[in-house]
């Protein structure tokens, strides 16, 4: 079991921890609902050091990533990031990731913790013929996120060599973070404005402690993976292992925009993905009209029918909206907003309605949203 460099601090903060993707991670501190609301109204501090960090450098880095991934990182300006997929040759999703461009020939790819090794192996194999070097820095890099409307004020005093307020949404830059050399990005997974701070493993405790100490005056609290999950679900963001699997395609997940079929050169999965661009089912948002909470794995039916037409991939009671929300795959005929279905919850069925995603959208957007 891996432990992040902040494990002792989490323990001192009274965190409840659990194994997640091979890591002992904080699930909650003050409580999931309290932490969730803190991120929506002030800001939360997250230890995401379990995430992977794969660096690609060399004259062929852009071409290599364009071949390995569904997007075209060659089109990224230096100091910009984008969301991408790495697909199997079948078109199924191997992982979703964020690609950051820090230089002409220098990129960072951040996969999910649970997929880090398979993504690293696939990237190693797929980029072998290119003038590029892959450096897996996952176990030497800590990732600390500050997410919420107060994030700019909280992060700014600890940044040298860059101006957080001037960093655009999905912007990234090298910077000195609480005295440590690192990378600052205006990215996140909560539906709020915020930053992700990539710092050396040994600097993580100092960065975390400095942020928490000065951020408390702005309402900053530590937030665990429990609230991270409810936050991303309200924001309609898919999670690998739930909405995204080897058996789902980016088009079914509504992520066709990150599959650049027209980019120059071949890429892994292209032929299969080109044939999947018109899916027969789609990822939808659902709200329950009856009492109850839909959970992952619960089957979905048309009223009165006995054969399921879909399955819930994630579900919770939305702390912000006060209703039960879920994501699910449904056939196109049932996937339009307003469509009514039934979800089997234990012994009974609850009525649910297809609603637009995301369930929650923050009222003010940082500029230059991409």
């Amino acid at each position, binding site marked *: 079991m891996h432990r992040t460099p902040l494990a002792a601090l989490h323990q001192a903060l009274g965190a409840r921890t659990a194994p997640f993707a091979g890591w002992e991670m904080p*699930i*909650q501190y003050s*409580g*999931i*609902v309290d932490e*969730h609301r803190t991120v929506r109204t002030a800001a939360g501090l997250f230890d995401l050091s379990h995430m992977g960090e794969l660096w690609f450098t060399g004259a062929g880095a852009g071409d290599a990533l364009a071949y390995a991934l569904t997007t075209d990182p060659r089109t990224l300006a230096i100091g910009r990031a984008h969301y991408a997929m790495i697909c199997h040759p079948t078109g199924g999703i191997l992982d979703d990731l964020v690609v950051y461009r820090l230089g002409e020939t220098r990129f960072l790819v951040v996969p999910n913790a649970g997929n880090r090794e398979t993504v690293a192996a696939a990237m190693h194999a797929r980029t072998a013929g290119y003038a590029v070097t892959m450096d897996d820095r996952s176990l030497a890099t800590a990732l600390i996120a500050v997410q919420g409307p107060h994030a700019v004020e909280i992060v700014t005093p600890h940044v040298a060599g860059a101006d957080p307020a001037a960093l655009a949404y999905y912007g990234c830059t090298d910077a000195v973070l609480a005295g440590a050399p690192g990378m600052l990005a205006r990215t996140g997974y909560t539906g709020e404005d915020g930053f992700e701070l990539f710092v050396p493993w040994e600097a993580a405790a100092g960065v975390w402690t400095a942020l928490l100490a000065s951020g408390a005056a702005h309402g900053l609290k530590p937030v665990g993976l*429990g609230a991270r*999950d*409810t936050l991303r679900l309200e924001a309609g963001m898919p999670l690998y292992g739930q909405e995204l699997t080897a058996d789902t395609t980016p088009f079914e997940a509504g992520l066709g925009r990150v599959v650049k079929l027209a980019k120059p050169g071949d890429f892994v999965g292209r032929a299969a993905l080109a044939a999947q661009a018109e899916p027969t089912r789609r990822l939808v948002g659902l709200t329950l009209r009856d*009492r*109850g*909470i839909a*959970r992952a794995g619960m089957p979905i039916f048309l009223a009165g029918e006995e054969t399921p037409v879909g399955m819930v991939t994630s579900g*919770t*009671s939305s*702390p912000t909206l006060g209703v*039960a929300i879920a994501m699910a795959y449904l056939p196109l005929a049932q996937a339009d907003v307003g469509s009514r279905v039934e979800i089997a*919850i*234990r012994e009974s069925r609850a009525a649910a309605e297809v609603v637009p995603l995301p369930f929650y959208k923050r009222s003010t957007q940082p500029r230059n949203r991409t």
Partner: protein
Amino acid sequence: MSIPEGLQYSVEHEWLRLDGDIGTIGITQYAAEQVSDIVFVDLPAVGATLTQGKPFGAIESVKAVSELFAPVSGTIIEVNTTLGDTPEAISNDAYGAGWLVKVKLSAPDEAAGLMDAAGYARHLGQ
């Protein structure tokens, strides 16, 4: 950690308050703290039958579902309907306002197999 005397406890962290052959059932404060942030309680209707050791409902947090297991067998004669609007009563007052159901026991001898407060404290490792 509150473990009141005079109640009986199951290994699944339910409590039972006996009054003749009528039993009131809830979950312990320990269980409520483990669930945390209780947002929904799924209980059967009056007239439903419980079987000792079998699931009869669920308590849900934003994160997870926890099944409820019947500490005794019987027929439900009353359900705490106030929990529909205030499920947090279970966290705030597990042994009082947070009670779940009242049952008429069908096999009163079953209660003898439950733990007393001291036994439950040992079960929790206290």
